[in-house]
């Protein structure tokens, strides 16, 4: 095998409307590597841009030819990613060139946590990523699937990898939605060791698909392997819901994608949602049976706040623990609607207290007033209390006063 052929290549968006991003083009040549740059922020960051580009070129052994950088105010992690993608496309190879890790990039993953809201962020739009951790979503999803066109999958995964390292995602769970099949495995190879908390698997139809992803993750990251959240998006996936939900111990939640499902059902998505009722309810049953969280689909009209609120109430009523968000403004609405009422919380507190008291006294059965309470009710009450605290209906120190 000879050296791979080095060819002209480029990465990153071009045009006058680009902001907070850049394009990098490589032209092979005999002379020592030249870096031509134009930037809107050259007067502030010219040298920093040059240094970032050179760092990647050095790591990839690109010592000749010309790199042309057209920058529109991209942050360093974006410059590193675009340059890396360009050089990979040109035929160079090298180790990932990572940005400085953000505080919080080591935040540990937590199996049992609130997943009321999850904010989708397109995996190829750095401008939308930068503030993604500020909106207090329970989770952010860096999306490599539907929001990244096929020809950009390679660049998207480098960008998402760098975003996982360089950005502070706050208290949000760090999720990545990968692609199906072999492309998805390449996605995993790029991101697995950069602390994704949970990986979303699109269009899962068999338990084997989940097993395969778990195996790849295990191989790449060992005990740091991310949790999984399969997405059911087809009638056959719904049909296999329980096997999928129970396919692997790394699964923490099961969700449903209604846009694709409706298409396959040949039943357009309606506001009432009767066409997907069985699918949604099956998802809840399967997830509960497997001891994981059922999570509902997104609501796509960002301007219809009342519609969203009604949607969240309905999905919560079906048993879902959370819904997807496509715009940060949906998050507070989702959290509000996922929060139980003061009366519900009060009742739940009584049950939890009774359960603790019973445990202290070594009693097997829990009684609230004259009614006996079963263990599932206690678990549900604990969840209600947690939601009440998260939603601001109940003081986080509610049980301090007892002691």
């Amino acid at each position, binding site marked *: 095998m000879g050296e791979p052929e080095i060819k002209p290549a480029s990465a990153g968006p071009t045009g006058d409307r680009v*902001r*907070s991003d850049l394009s990098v083009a490589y032209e092979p040549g005999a002379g020592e590597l030249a870096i031509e740059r134009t930037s*809107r*922020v050259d*007067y*502030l*960051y*010219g*040298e*920093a841009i040059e240094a970032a580009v050179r760092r990647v070129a050095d790591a990839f052994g690109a010592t000749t030819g010309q790199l042309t950088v057209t920058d*529109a*105010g*991209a*942050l*360093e992690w974006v410059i590193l990613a675009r340059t890396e993608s360009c050089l990979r496309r040109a035929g160079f190879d090298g180790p990932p060139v990572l940005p*400085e890790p*953000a505080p919080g990039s080591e935040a540990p993953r937590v199996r049992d946590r609130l997943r009321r809201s999850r904010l989708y962020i397109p995996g190829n739009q750095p401008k939308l990523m*930068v*503030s993604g951790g*500020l*909106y207090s979503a329970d989770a952010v999803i860096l999306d490599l699937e539907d929001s990244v066109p096929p020809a950009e999958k390679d660049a998207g995964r480098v960008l998402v990898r760098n975003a996982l390292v360089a950005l502070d995602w706050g208290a949000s769970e760090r999720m990545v939605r990968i692609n199906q099949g072999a492309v998805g495995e390449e996605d995993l190879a790029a991101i697995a060791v950069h602390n994704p908390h949970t990986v979303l698997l699109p269009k899962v139809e068999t338990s084997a698909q989940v097993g395969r992803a778990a195996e790849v993750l295990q191989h790449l990251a060992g005990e740091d392997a991310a949790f999984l959240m399969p997405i059911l998006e087809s009638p056959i996936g719904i049909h296999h819901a329980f096997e999928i939900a129970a396919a692997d111990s790394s699964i923490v939640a099961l969700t449903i994608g209604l846009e694709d499902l409706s298409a396959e059902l040949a039943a357009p998505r309606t506001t009432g949602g009767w066409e997907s009722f069985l699918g949604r309810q099956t998802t809840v049953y399967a997830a509960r049976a497997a001891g994981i969280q059922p999570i509902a689909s997104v609501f796509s009209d*960002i301007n219809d706040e009342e519609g969203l609120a009604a949607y969240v109430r309905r999905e919560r009523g079906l048993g879902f623990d959370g819904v997807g968000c496509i*715009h*940060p*403004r949906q998050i507070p609405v989702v959290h509000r609607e996922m929060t139980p009422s003061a009366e519900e919380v009060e009742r739940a507190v009584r049950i939890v207290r009774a359960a603790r008291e019973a445990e202290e006294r070594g009693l097997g059965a829990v009684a609230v007033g004259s009614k006996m309470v079963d263990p599932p009710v206690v678990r549900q009450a604990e969840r209600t209390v947690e939601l009440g605290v998260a939603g601001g209906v109940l003081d986080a120190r509610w049980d301090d006063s007892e002691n």
Partner: protein
Amino acid sequence: MVVRLEKNAAGRLVPVEVNGRAAVPFAGVGKYRPDGRRAAPRIASCIDYPADGDKRAGSLREAFERVGLTDGMVVSTHHHLRNGDTVANAAFDTAAEMGLRDLMWFPSASFPVHANQIGHLDSGVIHHIEGSMNGPLGAYCSAGKMRGLGVLRSHGGRWQAIQDGEVHIDVAVIAAPAADVFGNANGLSGPAACGLLGFALADSIYAEKVIVVTDNLTPFPCLPWQIQGNNVDAMVEVSSIGDPSKIVSGTTRLTQSPDRRRIAELAARFCADAGIMRDGFSFQAGAGGTTLAFAIYLAELMRAHDVTARFARGGSTQHMVEMLDEGLIEYILDGQTFDLDGVRSMASDPRHQDTSPFTSYNFHGKGNFASMVDVAVLGATEVDLSFNGNVVTHSDGRLLHGIGGWQNCLTARCAMLLVPSFRDRIPVIVDEVTTLCGPGELIDVVVTERGIAVNPLRQDLLDAVAGSDLPIRPIEDLKAELDRLCGVPATPELSNDPVAIVKWVDGTVIDTVWRVD
């Protein structure tokens, strides 16, 4: 041009002579007190004007000839027609046809449509501009192509300069959406309706000669007379004074930008948590993306807490009018109307009062409304670790915006800057502002998407929000986060060649804008 420079009280190098007149360096907030008497035009005699009140001239040129416009004079215009204005351009096109030279243009603000004047600057019809310069005009001035120094004043500073004689307007050209032959005029009706004419009020009172231009001549009397015909020398009827679609917007939409909405929401919550939002309070509103969103979030909180504002000051929009109709605010004291709902409301609702820089901002007034407002929300291009603000230049030193009412509004009881922490890698929170427009002692709170910084001088505000769950952070902390995210920026080299000065509200020079190549 060799200009002598001195360091002012803010440590900024400023010229002590501007366009042939001595200029006073900034002495500190509230430290400078000019004396003397107000300037005034020559006294006129009614016997020199037609007894039947008909002051019409056949054309702008005829009007200029009647009032004796000659080389080197100061010609003023107003900006209520915003980017739809055709009159300011027509005035200098006419002056060019008449072969006039070296005029000084004294607009209350300029817009991109006024790039037309670049030709007149090049040819010598206009000597220089004293007023805001944005877009192409800003680039022209920044490049050092203008013969005189640009002078940037706040809306209040413009009134101050007219009133104390620093600027003597020879001919005011006032575009009027409605007017009668006597010169009474207002902005309330007609195809170019813009609400009010407050920015032209000083011009009408203090200019030597006043020309009203309208495309909507009404029989006498044109009521209400926002501009009084008794101050007017000549009337010109034209087919159009402006493009209505660029004067007011049909509807003002709430920004979709998540960051801007977050900033606006944090600012509104700050007002609630700090106790600023209470029954009978007042606020300054605007039509910018973030300030409009602020008013919308504030309205939500006011409803939730059952609070009513006594008045809102500033530009009106559909949203402000809805708040008035809903009873959330009792009065709008309006400096400029931004959309058609604002115009309609001003024309029909006595609780919607038109104002002027005299009532709201003027340094030489015996008080003004700006300092009586509980909270003002403003933008900025930069704010530094001492809370100093810049609103006129880009961080490379190029002229970008006018001051507008920004400096004047800083005197509100709580002045808040609502800014993104950075824009496309360019930090907004910086070590030191490129151009000083507002001293940090007047800037109380900086709200960014990454947190809220309260000026340490405002311990009362810090105490008031102590128990709040708002992300209150020291400004140094925000800056450190930006240094990590964007990288530490280089310090751009500025030239030693002044192209414009920034006036403080009292007429002193607070900073210099330098040539950028």
